[in-house]
């Protein structure tokens, strides 16, 4: 499993927060167009997991004509196995606040919100202090931009951007149909830029050092660094900043416990990669790389040979059937049926061939569910059932 490529560690995100005033001043004295071009040429893609080009997002919102626009920082970090956003907000909050203000300047928004998940309520006092200090400075330099915290209340689905808007509007967190996209019609039906915490922190790096410094890291289609939340059967769980494009084999060599059976890339909504596919799998966004390339919000969960993949899948499906908002039928019913289905096969109530029916159901959900939650249940379901079929049956 040896390759020539080594894991490339980096240290941008958690470093050098103290110059936020310089970065803010320097940026708001450049034209919005220049800043957008800087972002586009860095090829930064959204770090929440979906991977939409950040520069393009800002550009679309900037081009819309509207008297009111919003900037929202998505801190509803709920994907199982992800915990990097909490660390960013507690260690380098000013990077995120600065990036939000620069975004506001670029698109023409004066109001920003941080949607913080209810589980992270304990972050609120410190974050509020940082916001107060930041706001005072904005006033000092005559920059009109306010930031407020909006607390979530324990719903995974609210990390989906349109569900998040609904939640902020005081409604059930049920995703909307797209289009219209948030850049045109988001919170309160106004143009809204919504970025993940980590994405915003990366824009800080880009505005500070210039696009080239960022672009030179990583590989084609997957530029820059990414924070990885490493957990499970590993001797060193934690948060690591690595260049994108690494091979999973190298990752396992570094982080595995010598007995790694499979790695779940991208949390419960991501893919399970079995040992035999470590070498051909790279971590990054879809592109023309050789082999399989997996995008991720940074969740890397390692399982060693003592783990039953049936239990893992059972746990994921229980998660999804509870967190499905229940709005669309494929997801509401599909999650329940997949969960009951694997139990029926395991207990012998259904024949092993029933798994094929379930795989078909998972595929149907991928095509017909309204939002990313229902569409991605099939990722983990199919990759686990196809690779560990025996464990599902016996």
């Amino acid at each position, binding site marked *: 499993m040896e390759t020539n490529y080594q894991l490339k560690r980096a240290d941008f995100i958690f470093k050098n927060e103290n110059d936020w005033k310089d970065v803010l001043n320097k940026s708001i004295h450049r034209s919005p167009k220049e800043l957008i071009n800087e972002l586009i040429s860095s090829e930064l893609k959204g770090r929440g997991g979906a991977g939409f080009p950040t520069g393009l997002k800002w550009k679309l919102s900037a081009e819309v004509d509207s008297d009111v626009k919003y900037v929202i920082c998505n801190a509803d970090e709920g994907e199982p196995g992800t915990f990097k*956003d909490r660390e960013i907000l507690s260690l380098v909050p000013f990077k995120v606040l600065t990036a939000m203000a620069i975004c506001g300047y670029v698109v023409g928004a004066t109001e920003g919100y941080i949607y913080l998940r209810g589980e992270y309520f304990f972050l609120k006092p410190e974050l509020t202090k940082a916001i107060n200090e930041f706001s005072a400075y904005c006033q000092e330099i005559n920059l009109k931009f306010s930031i407020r915290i909006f607390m979530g209340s324990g719903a995974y689905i609210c990390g989906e951007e349109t569900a998040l808007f609904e939640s*902020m509007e005081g409604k059930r967190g049920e995703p909307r149909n797209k289009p219209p996209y948030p850049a045109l019609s988001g919170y309160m039906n106004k143009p809204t830029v919504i970025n993940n915490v980590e994405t915003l922190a990366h824009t800080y790096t880009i505005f500070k050092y210039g696009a080239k410094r960022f672009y030179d890291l990583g590989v084609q289609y997957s530029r820059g660094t990414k924070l990885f939340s490493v957990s499970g059967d590993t001797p060193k769980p934690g948060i690591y900043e690595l260049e994108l494009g690494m091979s999973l084999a190298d990752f396992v060599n570094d982080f595995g416990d010598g007995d790694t059976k499979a790695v779940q890339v991208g949390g419960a909504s991501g893919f399970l990669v079995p040992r035999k596919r470590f070498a051909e799998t790279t971590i990054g966004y879809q592109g023309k790389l050789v082999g399989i390339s997996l995008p991720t919000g940074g969740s890397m969960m390692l399982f060693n040979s003592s783990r039953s993949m049936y239990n893992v899948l059972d*746990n994921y499906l229980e998660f999804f059937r509870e967190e499905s908002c229940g709005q669309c039928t494929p997801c509401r019913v599909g999650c329940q049926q997949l969960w009951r289905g694997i139990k029926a096969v395991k207990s012998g109530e259904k024949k092993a061939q029933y798994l094929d029916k379930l795989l078909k159901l998972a595929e149907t959900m991928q095509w017909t569910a309204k939002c990313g939650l229902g569409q991605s249940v099939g990722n983990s379901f199919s990759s686990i059932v196809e690779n560990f079929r025996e464990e599902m049956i016996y």
Partner: protein
Amino acid sequence: MNATALLIKQLADQYGRSRNNLLPILQGVVEQEKYLSEASMIEIARELDIPASDVFGTATFYSFLEHKKMGRYIIRVCKTITCSMKGKNQILLAIQDMLKIGVGETTSDGLFSLLQTNCLGFCHKAPTMLINNEVYTELTPEKVRTILSEYMAQSREGGTNGN
């Protein structure tokens, strides 16, 4: 005006009475009373001039907005994959054994409620739990017993009424 109605009026004054202030108001009531009673949801509807069914619909969507009477300290044990692999069941057993309640139940003195919850975002420090807004990580049964004893001692000192 009873205490709940007064609290709701204060919250509405603080956040505003438009629909997009509903969640902070619901959270404010839960913060004080630990759950949303039917009466408080109706009162919120009246205060914001929106249908009570809308308030109920929103409130029941969110897992942290309880609508069943809860104890003063709500224990939420993470049951998602990593915590589950790293001994969540032992933690639950330790709590159940000490408090003599099952998941979803409240102790007879109204002090503790025990719930399970989805990923708390501390997978690298599993297993974990929340007690109200406080996070406890890298738990062991012994550690859990110490933590709960502290809460019990604290409540004895402060009396059982209020916070």
